[in-house]
């Protein structure tokens, strides 16, 4: 008779964060908390102009300030002068020309942040201001001279699919505008670089999403072999896409190498708005053709993504946008033109949802228009067109992923609506909140829908593999990987996997650094699938070796063994032994690389199996609106999300609720306002983020349908929650006031004027 087992935090349980206690105590070391003996502070001088020629840079006065140890400009970059994720087009420091407001021009290292500020003020840069290319439409074609040697068009992609001559009995059309959203992670950019004593290498603690990509780009710019740049993940205060590109990595390491002293750089909030890429603002035109019953027969569309001054991931964002034109609906024919362009606006790149947010805002607006034209409600039109596994996308790619779109819509619809707003509602529950400006009797309620499809993992032939090493010794598992933990909880999940596969209780994560192969980026909802697959694979290899070891000792064929709870059991005999006992005195280590299936590039007609897999979600929003004042309160979000297998219910709910809040932000408040290339609101006073009072009631259902392609049966869950909630909220506002609002975020003037 076996004793009652203590609960082990295996897959499927709400295992708690291993870093939770440290984080609630303030003990967890974020990168910005690091301190080194003899440390200097670094700071960056940035361009005040969106487009200007640099006539001269005079750093002599800065050098003379007591406490200043180093001033560097483009002249001091020892290697490649540029970096970039897809194309290396962004200068480490601007040399001849600045192309956006806030572009780095120089950096200093000094004894105190205040000394740094004085040193930056003492650097004299003479600029000749140039005409600003701020209209993305002017970047297409020859209307504006190239602002970069690589030209103003970053990428163009066309999709032509099916019988494009067909026309619908119903045709609906819309022009949609999506504003520039900021990731607004709370822990601003930060790094600490410690030079090697011989000056030939550097150790860099950095808050990043992808250690090995940073290492590669830094090595080129610093003219050092990659192994001489040892990156360690410093504590990361959120990411959401904004830490995929290089920000201060090269600057910090360069200052450390030049001064032979540790250097720490940390952006303030205003600098952070200039220091990382944002979500692409976009304009999307769509024309849907349907039968008179409302079945889609063709979609025409045109996308323009404003990538700002440098390419970053614009080319991939564009592909995500155009390939998700149809949304989670069947569509036999399409003609789509997409452009990602270069302007003198702030550079844009990765943010949670990555191009699909923009496509979804447009296709969901179209579905509501189609519903009206076909005489259907928003639910029926979506059910009528709902995509299923086996359908063909407008890229010609078959949807092999589990695609429970109709079920998601039905389950969301089953969630009870919230009660009506009470006649004597507290003012904090009214749109506008404690401003006490809205009057209860003016308020109108609206309901709106949004449903989305999101590709997960990287696309277009890129092999974004992940590596993990598992070591079992004396009953304890240690896991090593370079997977960036940015708050999402991979450090919780990885030990859960080890406990499930190996039957251990004691499983810990080693330091996350570049002393193992790449894990790829913590983005594209990919780490549970990719790094989860790598940890699972490494643990399985260790299990095989453990079975061989125990089999040899006890003369049992290893193939007969299985792990049952915390024991090795002979499935056809009576032998049982705890894993802890079986692994005493031995150490087994195995490394595994997980690769997803190969994908293809798109051809000139946008055809090809370019994506790995897809995840789906449905959202229903209920809002209260004051139509006279243009104020909105999001009351409730109901959602059903396609998650594959649930691996940690608590972590999953956190991703769902957090993503919804970010989507709410894009719907009603978050926008970086850029006027002729100038950012007007780079602060948390002027860039509004959802607070506790803005948080709606979230009622979430997780739709569990095992995904056979995924190593753990689980789909990535990070991005879907923030995608279709935005159009759902905007649809609810339209429903409340009976007005077509074609843009997000919805501003008061969009409602009341």
């Amino acid at each position, binding site marked *: 008779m076996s004793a009652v087992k203590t609960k082990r935090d295996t897959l499927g349980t*709400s295992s*708690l*964060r291993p*870093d*939770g*206690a440290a*984080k*609630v*105590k*303030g003990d*967890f*070391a*974020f990168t*910005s*908390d690091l*301190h080194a003996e003899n440390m200097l502070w670094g700071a960056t001088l940035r361009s005040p102009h969106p487009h200007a020629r640099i006539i001269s840079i005079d750093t002599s006065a800065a050098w003379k300030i007591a*406490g200043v140890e180093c001033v560097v400009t483009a002249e001091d970059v020892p290697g490649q002068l540029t970096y970039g994720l897809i194309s290396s087009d962004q200068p480490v420091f601007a040399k001849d020309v600045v192309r956006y407001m806030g572009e780095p021009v120089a950096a200093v290292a000094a004894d*105190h*942040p*205040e*000394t740094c500020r004085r040193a930056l003020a003492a650097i004299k840069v003479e600029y000749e201001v140039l005409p600003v290319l701020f209209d993305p439409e002017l970047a297409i074609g020859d209307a504006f001279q190239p602002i970069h040697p690589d030209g103003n068009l970053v990428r163009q992609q066309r999709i032509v699919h099916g019988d494009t001559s067909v026309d619908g009995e119903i045709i609906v059309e819309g022009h949609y505008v999506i504003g520039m959203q900021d990731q*607004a*992670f*709370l*822990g*601003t950019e930060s790094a600490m670089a410690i030079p090697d004593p011989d000056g030939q290498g550097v150790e860099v603690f950095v808050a990043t999403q992808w250690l090995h990509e940073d290492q590669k780009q830094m090595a080129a710019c610093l003219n050092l072999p990659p192994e001489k740049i040892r990156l360690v993940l410093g*504590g*990361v*205060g*959120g*990411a*959401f896409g904004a830490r995929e590109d290089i920000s201060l990595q090269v600057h910090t390491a360069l200052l450390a190498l030049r001064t032979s002293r540790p250097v720490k750089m940390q952006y*303030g*909030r*205003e600098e952070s708005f200039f220091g990382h890429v944002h979500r692409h603002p976009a304009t999307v035109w769509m024309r849907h053709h349907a039968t008179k019953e409302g079945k889609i027969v063709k979609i025409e569309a045109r996308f323009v993504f404003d990538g700002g001054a440098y390419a970053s991931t614009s080319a991939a964002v564009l592909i995500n946008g155009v390939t998700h034109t149809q949304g989670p609906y069947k569509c036999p024919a399409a003609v789509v033109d997409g452009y990602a362009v270069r302007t003198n606006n702030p550079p844009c790149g990765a943010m949670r949802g990555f191009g699909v947010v923009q496509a979804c805002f447009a296709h969901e607006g179209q579905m509501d228009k189609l519903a009206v034209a076909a005489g259907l409600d928003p639910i029926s039109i979506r059910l009528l067109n709902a995509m299923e596994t086996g359908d063909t996308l407008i890229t010609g790619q078959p949807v092999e992923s589990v695609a429970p779109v109709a079920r998601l819509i039905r389950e969301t619809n089953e969630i009870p609506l919230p009660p009506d707003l009470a006649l004597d509602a*507290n003012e*904090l*529950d009214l749109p506008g909140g*404690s401003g006490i400006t809205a009057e209860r009797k003016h308020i109108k309620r609206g309901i709106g829908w949004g449903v989305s499809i999101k590709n997960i993992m990287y696309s277009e032939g890129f092999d974004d593999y992940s590596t993990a090493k598992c070591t079992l010794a004396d009953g304890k598992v240690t896991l090593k990987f370079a997977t960036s933990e*940015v*708050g*999402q*909880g991979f450090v919780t999940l990885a030990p859960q996997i080890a406990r499930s596969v190996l039957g251990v209780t004691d499983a810990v994560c080693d330091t996350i650094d570049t002393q193992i192969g790449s894990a790829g980026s913590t983005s594209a909802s990919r780490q549970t699938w990719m790094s989860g697959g790598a940890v699972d694979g490494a643990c399985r290899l260790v299990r095989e070796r453990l079975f061989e070891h125990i089999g040899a000792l006890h003369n049992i064929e290893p193939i007969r063994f299985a792990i049952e709870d915390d024991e090795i059991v002979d499935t056809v005999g009576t032998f049982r032994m705890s894993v802890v006992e079986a692994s005493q005195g031995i150490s087994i280590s195995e490394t595994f690389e997980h690769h997803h299936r190969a994908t293809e590039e798109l051809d000139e007609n946008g055809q090809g199996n370019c994506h790995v897999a897809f995840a789906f979600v449905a959202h229903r929003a209920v809002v209260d609106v004051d139509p006279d004042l243009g104020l909105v309160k999001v009351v409730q979000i109901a959602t059903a999300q396609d998650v594959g297998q649930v691996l940690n219910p*608590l972590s999953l*709910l*956190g991703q769902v*609720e*957090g993503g*919804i*809040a*970010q989507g709410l932000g894009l719907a009603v408040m978050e926008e970086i306002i850029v006027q002729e290339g100038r950012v007007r609101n780079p*602060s*948390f*006073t002027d860039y509004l*983020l*959802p*607070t*506790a*009072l803005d*948080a709606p009631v979230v009622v979430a259902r997780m739709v569990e349908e095992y995904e056979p392609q995924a190593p753990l049966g689980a789909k990535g869950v990070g991005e879907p929650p923030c995608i279709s909630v935005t159009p759902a909220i905007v649809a609810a506002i339209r429903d409340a006031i009976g007005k077509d609002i074609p843009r997000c975020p919805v501003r008061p003037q969009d409602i009341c004027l």
Partner: protein
Amino acid sequence: MSSNEFYTLKVNGTEHQVSDAWIGESLLYVLRERLGLPGSKGACEQGECGSCTVYVDGAAVCSCLVMAASAVESEIATVEGLNADGTLTDVQEAFVTEGAVQCGFCTPGLVMAVHHLLDENDSPSELEVKEALSGNICRCTGYGRIFAAVDKVVAVRKGVRS
């Protein structure tokens, strides 16, 4: 950047001498960079996000907005002072078990804000909780699990009392 003056801050019951500091330094900077107390976080420098919440004479304030030198006569309490005995407070424990922590950058400030709320109001309404925490921005969680953590503490404290 320094003067030869020094001043004394009383933090978590202990007096700390701050010497050779620039007089313009914020309480947040001095706590983090001079006194080795990095638990309070800086994320906006404008008093908008609450990550740097500490108590000055019992009032919850954004330490980024307080000049350190102006707090010489005050009792300052930081997140580090909550765990003098090494164990988690009920609020900290609930943040961990209810999933209120993701990246954790806002967490110390929120823990301070929740303790402050519950010290003043042992059974806050849902709206009172939301209002009390609306000065603390969390970008990861959407606040749902933070509310759950508060609810749990309130329920447990009530259970203990009854």
